[in-house]
C-alpha cells in the first residue's frame, strides 16, 4: 500500500497566521506610537499602546510555532 504524504502539523498553520497578524498589528501600533491618532479616533486607554505590546506578543508566539513546527524536507532512507 502506498504510504501517505505526511501532514503539515496544525501548529505550523497557527504559527504562520499569528506571525502575520503580529507583524501587521505591531507595525500599526508602532505607527500609532510615533504619530498620535487624531483625538476623535482614539479608543479608551489608547495611551497604553496596547496594540504595540500585544502585536509583539503575537509575533513571539507566531515565531515560536512556525519555526518549531515548520515542514521539513524528508530524508529518503536507503
Amino acid at each position, binding site marked *: 500500500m502506498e504510504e501517505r504524504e505526511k501532514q503539515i502539523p496544525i501548529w505550523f498553520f497557527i504559527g504562520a497566521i499569528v506571525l502575520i497578524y503580529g507583524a*501587521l498589528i505591531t507595525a500599526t501600533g508602532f505607527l500609532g506610537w510615533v504619530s498620535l491618532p487624531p483625538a476623535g479616533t482614539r479608543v479608551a486607554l489608547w495611551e497604553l499602546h496596547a496594540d504595540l505590546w500585544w502585536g509583539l506578543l503575537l509575533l513571539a508566539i507566531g515565531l515560536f510555532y512556525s519555526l518549531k513546527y515548520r515542514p521539513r524536507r524528508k530524508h529518503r532512507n536507503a
Partner: protein
Amino acid sequence: MAFLSLIAAMSGSASMLHLRPVDLLIIIIYFFFVLAIGFYLKKFASTGDDFFMAGRKMTAWIAGLSFISANLSSLETMGWSAMAYQYGMLGAHGYLIGAIPAILFLAIVMMPFYYISRTHSVPGYLQLRYGEGARSVAGISFSFMTVAVSGASMFAMAKILNLLLGWDMNISIWVASLTVAVYVTLGGLLSAVFNEVLQFFLIWLGSLLIPILGIIHAGGWGKMMAAVQRNVAVIHPAVQNADFTSLWQNLGSFASNPMGIDWFGMLFGQGIAVAFGYWCTDFLQVQRVIVAKDLRSAQNGTIIGAALKMMVPLIVTIPGLLGLAVLMNSDGSPMVLVPESDPRAGITHNTFNDVLPLLMGKYLGPGLLGLGVTAMIAGFMSGMAGNVSAFATVWTHDVYKPLINRKGSDRHYLNMGRWSSVIGVLLSIATAYTLFFFSNILEYLQVLVFFFIVPLFGTVILGMLWKRATPAGGFWGFLVAIIFSISMWAFVHTFPHGYQPQPKVTLSHGAEVLLTRANAAKPGAISYISIESGALDLVNVPLFGHEEGGEFTVQDQPLYMREVAPLRKTAAPIQILAPEVVIADTREQQKFGLSAVPARISPGVKVRSTFISRRFDPAAFNPDHVKVIARSDKAKPMAVNMYSAWWSLVVCLLVTIVVSLFTRPKPEAELKNLVMGLTPLPKEEASPWHRKPLFWAAVVMAVFIVINIIFW
C-alpha cells in the same frame, strides 16, 4: 486592492465602527487561510473514516482543543457575555457547575464505552445498545438540532457584522456559509478540527485584551464589582436588590438573584440535566474526542478541555460584567442594554447581545479591532463547521445508511457525507432567520438542548450503567421525554386568557414632534410630546375620542394619549419609540425612546392602531405557568430552561425504567462492550502518574472547587 475597496464599500454609514485597511487585510488573510487549509486537507480525506472520523489519529491536545473550541463559537462568547450582563456572576456557572463535573464524568466514566464500542456517533451507540428505533429518533432529532444551532451561529454573525460594520446581513451569511461549505466538504471532520484549533488561538488572542484593558479602566477587580452592583439599579431596575456579584450565596431564595432561580435549580437543572446532557451526549462535543488516537488520548483530551473551559469566563463573563460597570452614555449615566424582544431593541437601545461588540469598539484600535472581528468571524464559522460536520456524520451513518441505503460502498458514503455537508449549510442558512422569536441567542440554544439533548443523556446513561434497560425502555423513555420537553416549552408560552404585549407607539421616520421639558423630578427630561405630522403605529394604546383600532387620519380636533394603558390584569406604561424624527421648532433630527409620557396627536397625523391579544407567544413567558415549572413566578427564561431540563431528565429516567421492567432485555452476549460490568477495559500500559487521566481529573476538580469557594 479592488477586493478591499469592495469590502469597504459594504460598510454602511450607520455602522458603529469603521474598519481601517489593516483590519480588512487581517479578515481577508483569515479567509485565505481557512480555504487554503481546506484545499490542502482534501487529499487526507479520501476514505469514509478520514472524512467522518478524521482518521482516528488525533493527539490529546488537538482533541482537547477541538473539543473546547467546538463549544467556544462566537454564539457562546456573545451569548454568555449577554448572560453575564443580564444575570451577573451567575453567568459564569455555564463554565463551572454547568460544565466541569459533566466533562470529567464524560472523560472518566463514559469515554471508555464510546471508545471501545468504536461507534461513529452517539446515535450509533444507541443503535448498538437499544436498536434501530432509538437510533432513528436520536439521528433525526440531532440532525435537526445541528442545523438549527448552525443557523443560529450564522444569524448571530450576520447581526454583529451588521451592527459593527454595517455589512449587509445577507452578504455576511452567504460569504461565511459558502466558505464553511467549501472547507468542510473538502476536508470533512479533519478540516473542521483544524479550523477549530486555529479558532481557539484567534479567539483568545483577539478577545483577551478586552478584560485586561476593561479591568484596568475600571480601576481593578474590586472597583469593577462595586460599579456593577451600583449600576444595576439603573440598568436592571426590576431586580435592583438582587446580588449580581456572587456565584452561590445569592441562590438561597428566588428573589435574591437576578435569574430568579434557587440552588436546587442551579445544581440539578444546570449542573446535572443541562450539563451532563450537553457535554456527555451532544455528539458535536463527543465526536471531537472519540476520534483521538487511543483511549487515554481521548480521556486526557477531554480533561484538557475541562481545564480550558474553566478559563473561558475570563473572556466571556468578565466582559459581561464590564458592560455593567464601564459602558456609559455621554452624560455619564450607565448605558442600558435591552433584550432582543424589547421594542426599543435596535431602535434607541443596543441589546444584551451587543455587550461584547460594544466593548470591542471601546477598547480595540486599528489592527486589534481587525483581529477581534476576525476572532468573532472565526468563532461563528467554526461553530457552523462543527455542526455541519457532525450533521454530515449523523445524517450519513444514522439516517441515510440504516433507513435509506444500506448497501452503499465506502466511496458512496463519502460522497453522501460531502453532499450532506453542503445541504447542511443551506439548511442552516434557512434556519438563521427564525431566531427573532427568542429574546436571547443563548436561550435559543438552551431550548434546543432541553428538547433533545437532555432526554438523550437519560437514555444513554441508563444504557451504559444498567444492563436491564431494554430496547423498548430506551426508545419510549427518549421519545416521551422529548415530547414532554416540547410540551413544557409550549406550556410556559401559552396564555389561556390572552397575552397583551406592552403598549407601544412607534413614530415614522421624518415625523415632526414638539417636546416639552418641564419635569420637576428630573429637570431636562421630556414630560410631554406633541406629534405634529407624520404617521404613528399604535399597539394596545387607546386614544381619547378614538378607542377602537384601525387606520385613520386625525381630523379637525387633536387626539390625546395617557401615559399608561389598561391591560387585562394591570395598567402598563406606554412606550414611545422615535427612531428618526424632526424637532418641529429647531428642525433638528433626533431619535429617542420614552416611557409613560402623555402625548398629543395633531390633525393630519396618520394613525394605525391595533389591539393584540395572543394565546401563544414564543417570546413571552406566562408567570402563572412559569411558577409550575420553575417553582417561582420570578424565574427568568434561563431559570425556566434549567428547571425544564431537570424535569425532562426525570421523565426520561422514569419512563425508561418503568418500561424496561415490563419488557424483555437484550441477552448479555449482545451487550458486551456496551454496558458497565460487561465491558472489559483495556489494560492500561504502565505509565507515570502524571499521564494518568484520573490524576488530571482530580487536579481539575480541585481547581474547580477552589474557584467556587473564592467567588462564592
